[in-house]
């Protein structure tokens, strides 16, 4: 493990050095955009109004996107190999995947000059988990020893997080968990300065982080969040644009039009209705990125109609994913042949036997199993799911002889309520994006017994133990095999219909060098890497 990390660090260092020479000639902190060549210029990019700008509390994309550049976690992620790379921690080691030691770099400071030590992380982690602070990401800490005691109010601090010395952090887990370094790259684990604990509300109006960029003024709600490059960044790779301007839109449609007129440099939330015209509207200044954003239809396994696996398989095989993607998503999404995203090393394009369109086999199976003649399809409203859910319903009616499909669309709060009370009576739409690029995360939270995001009620001992096996394996190959076997069980049992992994087109203005545009697995454009041509 240690060996791996060090090697990766070396690789990153080389690219970072190259980047430094490129930017070195600029130097100055040009606040005004325009002459981009010198200092990297100012890039404007679409965003929605964040719920908050507090790492421990940020679970939605709008806020998390902004935090990406403001903070650097213990670890980072390499966006090509999807492996953990050094962040504040330069290297780390573990014997058993259960007790981990992280060695921190010594020159890290927050944007206000406060030094970052191992104690910073101890304080941050304790504060985030403390139920009094109601941080939404606290759940991500549940693998750390002592988590439950803090949540139950029996302890003040996490027993498993210790500062051995100023620059050595020890993390002890409840159980072996090999993806820990990847998990620590997630937003919820970013370090916080003392100021954040003293007055969180005013802190998040202008968060002080340790990342490549710092706040330029306060967060102007509903209008913009401006960042400027932090010239004393302790990490190896400095950001390229001198300034980042997050423009906040209430409506993605308006942002698309702004991008088209050159008002906005980068727009990465293009709604599917525009996908067919991207080339006409933007010429070469558009490209599509595959992401880990997974869309599926879950079955309420607690309902009698869906207890027969053949019914579930038939419903899956009656969906022509390719056709729906072709017509509604302009051919851009990747049909799912399993639940592990394509960018993961464990991905197989033949993991699922019943995910391809086989109407005859489906009809036969459905009839034999006595599948219901009326179905209700659930989805959350206002999120653009209407067109494809209607197409799925039409295909079920056409291919399985289902007489009628009703739709229940509702706000998310109500949707979760129905799930909690086991009141869902038909297939339901949900999605899942990898918060950190680990195959474990693509499966464990959604399908293991009694996990918080397990909405189907799926419970399979063999699956659970295979996930544990993968998590505790010290050998990468053994872990991969275990995860793949776990996926096999899912595809055999079909508690869900995998549909597709979403692709995200990104459109840019003439000013942006297209080859510098990268979107990561979380659907975030790596703004720090954008280069302007002007």
């Amino acid at each position: 493990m240690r060996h791996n990390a060090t090697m990766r660090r070396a690789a990153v260092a080389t690219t970072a050095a190259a980047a430094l020479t490129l930017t070195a000639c600029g130097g100055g902190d040009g606040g005004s955009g325009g002459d981009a060549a010198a200092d990297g210029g100012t890039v404007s990019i679409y965003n929605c109004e964040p719920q908050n700008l507090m790492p421990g509390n940020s679970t939605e994309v709008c806020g998390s996107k902004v935090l990406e550049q403001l903070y650097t976690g213990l670890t980072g992620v390499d966006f090509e190999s999807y492996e953990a790379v050094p962040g504040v921690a330069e290297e780390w080691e573990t014997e058993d995947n259960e007790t981990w030691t992280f060695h921190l770099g010594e020159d890290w400071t927050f944007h206000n000059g406060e030094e970052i030590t191992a104690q910073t992380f101890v304080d941050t982690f304790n504060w985030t988990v403390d139920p009094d602070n109601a941080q939404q990401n606290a759940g991500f800490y549940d693998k750390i020893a002592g988590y439950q005691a803090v949540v139950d109010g029996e302890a003040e601090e996490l027993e498993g997080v210790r500062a051995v010395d100023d620059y050595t952090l020890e993390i002890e887990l409840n159980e072996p968990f090999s993806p820990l370094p990847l998990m620590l790259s997630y937003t919820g684990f970013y370090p916080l300065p003392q100021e954040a604990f003293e007055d969180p509300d005013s802190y998040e109006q202008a968060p002080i982080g340790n990342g490549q960029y710092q706040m330029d003024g306060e967060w102007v709600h509903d209008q913009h969040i401006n960042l400027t490059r932090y010239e004393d960044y302790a990490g190896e790779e400095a950001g390229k644009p001198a300034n980042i301007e997050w423009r906040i839109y209430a409506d993605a449609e308006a942002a698309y039009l702004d991008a088209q007129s050159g008002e906005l440099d980068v727009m990465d939330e293009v709604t599917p209705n525009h996908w067919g015209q991207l080339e006409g509207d933007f010429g070469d200044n558009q490209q599509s990125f595959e992401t880990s954003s997974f869309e599926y239809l879950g079955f309420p396994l607690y309902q009698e109609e869906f207890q027969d696996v053949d019914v579930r398989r038939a419903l899956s095989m009656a969906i022509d994913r390719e056709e729906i993607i072709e017509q509604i998503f302009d051919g851009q999404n990747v049909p799912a042949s399993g639940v592990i995203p394509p960018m993961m090393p464990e991905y197989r394009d033949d993991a699922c036997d019943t995910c391809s369109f086989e109407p005859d086999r489906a009809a036969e199976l459905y009839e034999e199993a006595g599948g219901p003649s009326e179905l209700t399809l659930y989805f959350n409203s206002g999120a653009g799911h209407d067109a494809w859910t209607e197409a799925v319903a039409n295909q079920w009616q056409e291919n399985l002889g289902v007489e009628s499909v009703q739709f229940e669309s509702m706000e998310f709060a109500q949707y979760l309520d129905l799930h909690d009370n086991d009141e869902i009576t038909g297939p339901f739409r949900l999605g899942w994006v990898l918060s950190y690029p680990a195959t474990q995360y693509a499966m464990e939270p959604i399908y293991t017994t009694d996990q918080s995001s397990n909405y189907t009620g799926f419970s399979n001992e063999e699956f659970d133990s295979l996930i544990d096996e993968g998590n505790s394996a010290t050998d990468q190959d053994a872990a991969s095999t275990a995860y793949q076997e776990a996926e096999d069980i899912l595809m055999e049992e079909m508690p869900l219909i995998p549909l597709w992994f979403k692709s995200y087109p990104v459109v840019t203005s003439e000013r942006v060098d297209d080859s510098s545009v990268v979107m990561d697995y979380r659907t975030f454009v790596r703004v720090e890497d954008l280069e302007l041509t002007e």
Partner: protein
Amino acid sequence: MTRYIIRRLLQFIPVVLVSTLIVYALNFLMPGDPIRALAGERPMSEAAIATMREQYNLNDPFLVQYGKYIWGIITAGDFGSTFSGRPLSDIIAQRLPTTLMLAAVTFAIQAVIGIIAGILAGLYKDRFIDRLVQVTTVVMVALPTLVIGFLLQLIFGLNLDWFPIAGTRDGLVSYILPGIALAAVSTGMAARMVRGELVDALQSDYVRTATAKGLSRRRVVLRHGLRNSLIPVVTFLGADLATLLGGTMVIETVFNIPGLGAMIVDSIKGQEGTVVVGIVTLFLLFFVTVNLIVDLLYALLDPRIRYE
């Protein structure tokens, strides 16, 4: 007059209280736990949810919640805060000017274009201009506001590039397209009204007499006909100014204008009861005030009306 105004102002109190209670109650009845939905598919811990529910009084019975809310407003001017911890007073201070600006532009468009179109149509009854106004009116009234909004964005924002497509970065100019979209229906109605009144007035005895006396037709119309024709239009536009706030919910969303209308839509979806009620209260105060002003204005324009 003063007594009348005071009486009207006192009558506001029950209206505002009951209306906010209705909205608060509706919000309360919405199914699901808004706190849980904050974190999406990956739920937050039970402990954190409990802390937040406590913080926002969500565990209290309905009337206690409402009582605490109203009490907070009266005693501390505290309109509550959003689930992400932002005080509502901040939001209002920031968004109210935007919405007022949009309302002002809309009102100006309604009044100016509506009245001019109406006068032209009325003066040249059954001629080309009249037909044109009538047809345009029908189209404007017939198209739902949101469709008009989108067509305007597309034609004048994107294709012709005359106006910004969305946002408020360019100041006054940014408000023109949303203003037109929001004004469309009422402009049509106002034009129809003015036309109707003017046609009536032109046939009335006093205008005929005045024309017979040798005054020019234009002069007669502007002096006599118009003044009487404007009374119902002013009433209509005034009352409409208040309902216009409802329209901002759609148009602010379409045009990405960070005002109170867009905020209210989001808050309803997120079940942010305090935010919804706070903004609604503001709308109500605006509404009743405008109605009062309209009534007073009415007296000013029509000398036959006097308030005791």
